[in-house]
């Protein structure tokens, strides 16, 4: 129940939210540097914890609805409170997280502990005063967006207009207004008239960071469609179609499964987008549909293990990917608690490990290496000794600084660039 299922920094990076399989959301806040604790800058401590979703049961379909949080997306901050959207398979909720550091004292009709006073005992009239109290962080659900998805929600994305957002399930994408919970517009519907003809599903969707009319969605067949909401109300016809041509002679039983895109993310610049499939990460230029501009191999050595990865279902693992603030580096997870970063201009790639043994506080992370040939060097790991139960599916990069959050099953690791 404590398995982390999503990790997301807010727009400033001061807050980091995690969602888990048990429906809980834990928010961490970055400590401000103080004179008494100069080294504490950069540390994230728990700020708020709340139960976002509960398990439910759909009686009509005899389906259990998991409380697992699939995605969290922050809204940009507009006042003292913080807002985020969290979703499970069926329902999206808008949560308000606010601080309270004052308390009213000296009520006329109730005691300090809240009990009502006897009216005959009230002998004087007094004005309640605000007194400081210990900081309390409260999370309250402000909106519940329910009953709009027949299939399982895989993505939510806040629009750059800060008023609308989209939610995507396996076959449909809906557009919501943050203020309206009883109505949602369907903007993509790929459900075939006959379900026997079903060949692909939607795997991820995201709004463009600057153009509020543009969004993309990826499919289980390795394609990405870019849609423009100005062209029509229902965006079943794409504006752009991104697909890398496949060599037909290399096609195998596994081809389609490993081409399925598990995550799609626009670059901060809005010029590129990145997709993650089972073995690689690809960077696409939005102006070029026929192939990606960059391809990075995450763990190509797994290609010769596809049979066993299919049998233990690992081939269906959905890895996410992320950009750093300047779009110069991309990061994604792998197995054995390894995660990989790729520097786009230098083509330098690094493999790091998120585990207790290799991460002492303040110590530098040592790069790891997987041995792909027969001769194993010292400190290298062989492919056969990789632990496929230790998968890093969720990672996040601070929007402006080199601080990364890595979720390793039920542990959250925070790494930052060493500052001299």
């Amino acid at each position, binding site marked *: 129940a404590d398995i982390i299922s999503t990790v997301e920094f807010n727009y400033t990076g001061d807050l980091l939210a995690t969602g888990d399989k048990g429906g809980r959301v834990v928010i961490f806040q970055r400590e401000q540097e103080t004179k008494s604790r100069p080294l504490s800058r950069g540390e994230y401590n728990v700020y708020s914890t709340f139960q976002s979703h509960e398990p439910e*049961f759909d*009686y009509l379909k*005899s*389906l*259990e*609805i*998991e409380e697992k949080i699939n995605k969290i997306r922050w809204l940009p901050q507009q006042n003292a409170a913080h807002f985020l959207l969290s979703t499970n*398979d069926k329902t999206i909720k808008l949560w308000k997280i606010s601080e309270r550091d004052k308390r009213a004292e000296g009520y006329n009709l109730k005691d300090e502990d809240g009990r009502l006073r006897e009216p005959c005992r009230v002998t004087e009239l007094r004005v309640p005063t605000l007194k400081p109290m210990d900081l309390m962080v409260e999370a309250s659900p402000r909106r519940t967006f329910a009953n709009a998805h027949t*299939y*399982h929600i895989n993505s939510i994305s806040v629009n750059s207009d800060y008023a609308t957002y989209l939610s995507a399930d*396996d*076959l449909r994408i809906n557009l919501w207004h943050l203020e309206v919970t009883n109505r949602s517009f369907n903007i993509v519907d790929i459900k075939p008239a006959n*379900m*026997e003809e*079903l*060949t*692909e*599903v939607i795997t991820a969707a995201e709004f463009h960071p600057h153009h509020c009319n543009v969004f993309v969605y990826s499919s*289980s*067949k390795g394609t990405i469609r870019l849609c423009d909401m100005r062209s029509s109300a229902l965006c079943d016809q794409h504006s752009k179609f991104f697909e890398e041509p496949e060599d037909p002679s*290399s096609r*195998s*039983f*596994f*081809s*389609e*499964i490993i081409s399925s895109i598990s995550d799609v993310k626009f670059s901060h610049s809005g010029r590129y987008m990145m997709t993650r499939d089972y073995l690689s990460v690809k960077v696409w230029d939005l102006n070029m549909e026929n192939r990606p501009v960059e391809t990075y191999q995450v763990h190509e050595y797994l*290609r*010769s*293990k*596809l*049979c066993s990865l*299919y*049998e*233990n*279902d690992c081939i*269906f693992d959905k890895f996410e990917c992320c950009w750093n603030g300047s779009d110069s580096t991309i990061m994604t997870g792998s197995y054995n608690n390894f995660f990989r970063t790729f520097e786009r201009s230098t083509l330098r790639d690094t493999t790091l490990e998120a585990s207790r043994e290799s991460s002492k506080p303040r110590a530098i992370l040592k790069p790891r290496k997987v041995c792909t040939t027969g001769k194993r060097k010292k400190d290298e790991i062989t492919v056969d000794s990789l632990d496929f139960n230790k998968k890093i599916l969720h990672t996040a990069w601070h929007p402006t600084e080199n601080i990364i959050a890595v979720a390793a099953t039920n542990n959250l690791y925070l790494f930052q660039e060493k500052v001299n």
Partner: protein
Amino acid sequence: ILLDVSLTVSLTVFQEMEDKVLSPEKAEEAKLKARYPHLGQKPGGSDFLRKRLQKGQKYFDSGDYNMAKAKMKNKQLPTAAPDKTEVTGDHIPTPQDLPQRKPSLVASKLAG
């Protein structure tokens, strides 16, 4: 003439060996087909997709489930948690009792 023919034969053999040696993915596919000969006869895509869309299916009576939930709240059963493998015949099953359905398609192909 004899020389030409033998040259062609050896070239063809080399081509076949290349195909087998250079594609780890195809080698893995051959391994899979050897273990599960009935796999892949339907288009692979739709099987996975249908399984994916059906995630969360539980096969028991939700009315019974709610009755059991209500009873448990009232009685605070002191007995140990029921054996997770034996759920029928003895008591009303709840979602927690049912063994996790292995999501792999491979198992179902073997059964059918």
